[in-house]
């Protein structure tokens, strides 16, 4: 018994610490404020919500708490979105016309203006990222990251305020801004750049920003064209088939998928450059790029699967069958099969190298067709966002 003490294991300083013990007071404060706001929202609006919407509300509280715990900058982002959105909503005084008369709304944080700021900031961020890449300037890189964060902030504020505006048009018109191409394109920009920012921090690399923001800026181009040429940026009431709580989770899940696939394609293009010997000294190593591409496709695939399943469950309620071989459904299946094959070859067969990168890049075309092309060229039940 005398040597019992000796038998205690030696503690080395880098034993993994349980997740919950890693949380600091800021994390707890953040979660408490978030949950308190959720409860407040529930107490104020519970009479307008059914059981699913209540579940989603509290689910969102939990999900965003966890998200903030796992990735700290989310905490600040959420606080920023909440503050600016509430400030903006407050300025409306319940009158839709305020958007054109109140200074802050007209030039800064009205729904359409905030989205415009997002557009400008994304394009600026992209240019800055490219400048940082060629000038090898760490400081410029930091500026680019800040610009991207600012764009994300403005984009979310725009969506939040738009959500509020839709209720100002008429209470029965009000709905979450995920119902037409204009709105989901904003969501696409936000999700893609948020995912990029996560990996930028995780992999300590700012060199890919220019690549990823290229695809985001194309989406910005689309938003601008849609706004100025097609005047399709207005809030439209929901057709009966879209009036469902499922929209609140089906659409975002889908766009995590689309965003991740786009991110993967842009990383793949960087990989191919490095592989061919271009920009080798400026870009991260091929190994890192390969890993990042794989991670992005995995996340995208998981969420795309969930989104498609949620879509099937919704279709069973709205269209009378969980699968109708509608053009969008079928193309979702094709996208799914495409990335399933990609992951299969990599995980089961251990395939690596430029072929997978090319595949990820071409996969973006398939994804884009499923996302946009189906709306443009094919008809079907999903004809909500027509061009």
């Amino acid at each position, binding site marked *: 018994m005398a040597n019992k003490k*000796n*038998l*205690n*294991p*030696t*503690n*080395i300083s*880098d*034993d*993994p610490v349980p997740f919950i013990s890693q949380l600091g007071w800021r994390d707890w404060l953040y979660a408490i404020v978030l949950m308190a706001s959720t409860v407040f929202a529930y107490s104020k609006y519970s009479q307008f919500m059914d059981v699913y919407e209540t579940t989603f509300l509290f689910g969102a509280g939990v999900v965003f708490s966890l998200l903030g715990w796992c990735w700290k900058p989310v905490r600040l982002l959420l606080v920023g979105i909440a503050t600016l959105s509430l400030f903006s909503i407050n300025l409306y005084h319940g009158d839709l016309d305020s958007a054109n008369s109140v200074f802050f709304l007209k030039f800064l944080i009205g729904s359409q203006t905030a989205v415009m700021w997002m557009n400008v900031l994304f394009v600026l961020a992209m240019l800055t990222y490219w400048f940082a890449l060629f000038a090898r300037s760490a400081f410029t890189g930091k500026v680019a990251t800040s610009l991207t964060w600012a764009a994300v902030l403005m984009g979310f504020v725009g969506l939040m305020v738009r959500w509020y505006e839709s209720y100002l048009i*008429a209470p*029965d*018109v009000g709905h979450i801004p995920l119902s037409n191409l204009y709105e989901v394109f904003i969501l696409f920009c936000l999700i893609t750049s948020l995912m990029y920012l996560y990996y930028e921090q995780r992999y300590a690399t700012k060199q890919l920003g220019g690549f990823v923001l290229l695809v985001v800026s194309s989406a910005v181009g689309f938003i601008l064209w849609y706004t100025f040429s097609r*005047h399709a940026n207005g809030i*439209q*009431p929901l*057709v*009966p*088939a879209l*009036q*469902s709580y499922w929209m609140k989770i089906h659409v975002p899940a889908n766009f995590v998928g689309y965003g991740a696939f786009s991110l993967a394609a842009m990383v793949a293009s960087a990989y191919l450059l490095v592989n061919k010997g271009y920009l080798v000294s400026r870009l991260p190593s091929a*190994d*890192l790029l*390969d*890993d990042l591409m*794989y991670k992005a496709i*995995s996340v995208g*695939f*998981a969420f795309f*699967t*969930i989104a498609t*399943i949620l879509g*099937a*469950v919704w279709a*069973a*309620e*709205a*269209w*009378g*069958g*969980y*699968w109708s*071989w509608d053009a969008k459904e*079928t*193309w979702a*299946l*094709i996208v799914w*099969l*495409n990335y*399933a*094959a990609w*992951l*299969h070859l990599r*995980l*089961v067969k*251990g395939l690596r190298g430029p072929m997978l990168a090319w595949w990820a890049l071409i996969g973006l075309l398939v994804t884009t067709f499923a996302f946009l092309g*189906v709306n443009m060229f*094919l*008809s*079907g039940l999903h004809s909500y966002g027509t061009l």
Partner: protein
Amino acid sequence: MRFAVSVLTVLGIASIIGTVLKQNEPYANYVIQFGQFWFDLFEILGLYDVYHSAWFLVILVFLVASTSLCIYRNTPLMLKELRAYREQATEKSLRAFSHQHEYNSAQSLEQIRQDVSHFLTVRGFRFRTVKQADGSELIAAKAGSYQRLGYIFTHAAIVIICIGGLMDGNVPLKVQELLGQKTVESRDIPANEVPKKSRLSVSNLSFRANMTLPEGASADVAFQRVRDGYMVQELPFSIALTDFRIEHYPTGQPKSFESDLVIIDPDLKAPLKHTISVNHPLIYKGIAIYQSDFQDGGSKLNFDVWGILSPEAKSIPLAGTIFGKTEFGAGANALQLEFIDFRKFNILNLSPDGKGKPRNVGPNVTFKVRDTAGQAKEYVNYMQPLQLDGRAYFVSGMRSSPQEEFKYLRIPADSNFEMQGFMQTRAVLFNKALHQEIAHRFALKALKPSDDVAVKTKFESSVVQLLGAFSEGGYAEISRLIEASVPQAEREAAAQTYIKIITAAAFEAYQFGQERAGIKNVKLDENTQAFLQDSLNAISDLFFYGEPIYLQMTKFEQREASGLQLTRSPGKNLVYSGSVLLVLGIFAMIYIRERRIWLLIKPQHKSVLFAMSANRKNRDFEIEFNRYQSQLNTLLQS
């Protein structure tokens, strides 16, 4: 497995065909689109309903079979891997690992054992310790073994989802068709006359059928569309529709579709009343009843029929019902009117640049007019005048075949927004007996009293001639007249003069018509001028309208019909549970990383051999190995 991937590829390509070629259209449309040869070929290939064609189902069955085979072959191996610690590893084999390191350690075996077991446990590894013959000890550890379940789950999920889908598909029907027990009905006959061979009994395992129920009607059968025909699906209860409602947003877009249903079933004490709407179906006796679409259920309509190419100034009243037929006229001129559809709301964007807001322009009726030769033209008439380019017109579209676009006739509304003004003017202009009177009135205004009689007579007769030509073929006839009688060089000037004369004469005709209708003191202001221009254009167009009558809707009594979809899909629960399994499997496969660690403690050599492996070697694994290697160094050296 290679086979499974090829099958998946074929499935993907087959699916694309179905999105490019519009599925389940009436067969006549395909014949028109492709021509008879390609139509027949495509029909044999089943391209009009790819997803229910035999070959597509065969692909799915192959997919299920080959995936099942994969599972059958690999599952025992996977489960063995999942459980195994691989404690039989020898020093030699460990030294052959690409990721291994040997430490010198002066610590006691017991201390090392303690430290290492703590090290492994806190990092989520489970392990077994095996004493070796030479006194050394092997610790075989593993983490993330459940990754293997990911493989089993995802593959099982695909099989389960496909089986669920096949259950809800049309395999049983296809088999019965092949055996000759069932045939598709393609005649347009009442449901109760459909023979047993084309009826599906109440016990049918799964179906997706439709029913159109007019307000106040009930039905106990639904129709399942199959290729170019249908099957009658019998139901274990009957459904009655008491009311169908559409609500609109202030902008005119539809906000909700609702049907008040009554389920009548002998098993029920009292009929079950329930309102369904989009996204809110009713499930009764395992059959889900959905709000699918809506159409007219036989609205009653009243019309004023105008003989538009005749001098008749009065209209004839006519009553009709949607889906009904009415005879009009007699003998060789008899026309059959077939009423097709009535719509109370029509949301159109009539702004000139197309950028304005769409709005409700009121009811319209679609009908066919069939002559004695059996030729039919299709018309769509709007009840209320539409605002086009700032003026109000009664609009009627006409086409000779369903492939054509509608060509529109615009009849100007008079100052009371009615059709009277135009119809009276038209009646006078088409009445040759009145042309002299019109010419005379015109001459009185146009000529000075001092002009001599010969001039007057000549003027009047040329006006009569022009009116005569116009009443026989509109502007087209006038232009023929000019080409026949005026030299090339003077034609343009003549045309302008003639048009001026006709317009001015038209005012006289308008005035005359208004007087006949009891309206006095008609002034020629700007509005009247524009109205007359439009009227003359419209009269010219009447000659291309196809039939000599115009139906003006005066009254309607709407009766709607609700389109219901009825489904029984026992495979749904399988598909859903398969989906859950799929998600679990994907997360297990992607986010659980299987890793193994071996630590061979050799007290006799005062050394510890560390080896690590993973079934997927990637960047994360390299990082982890390096971390563990240095952490173990600290641990074992201390």
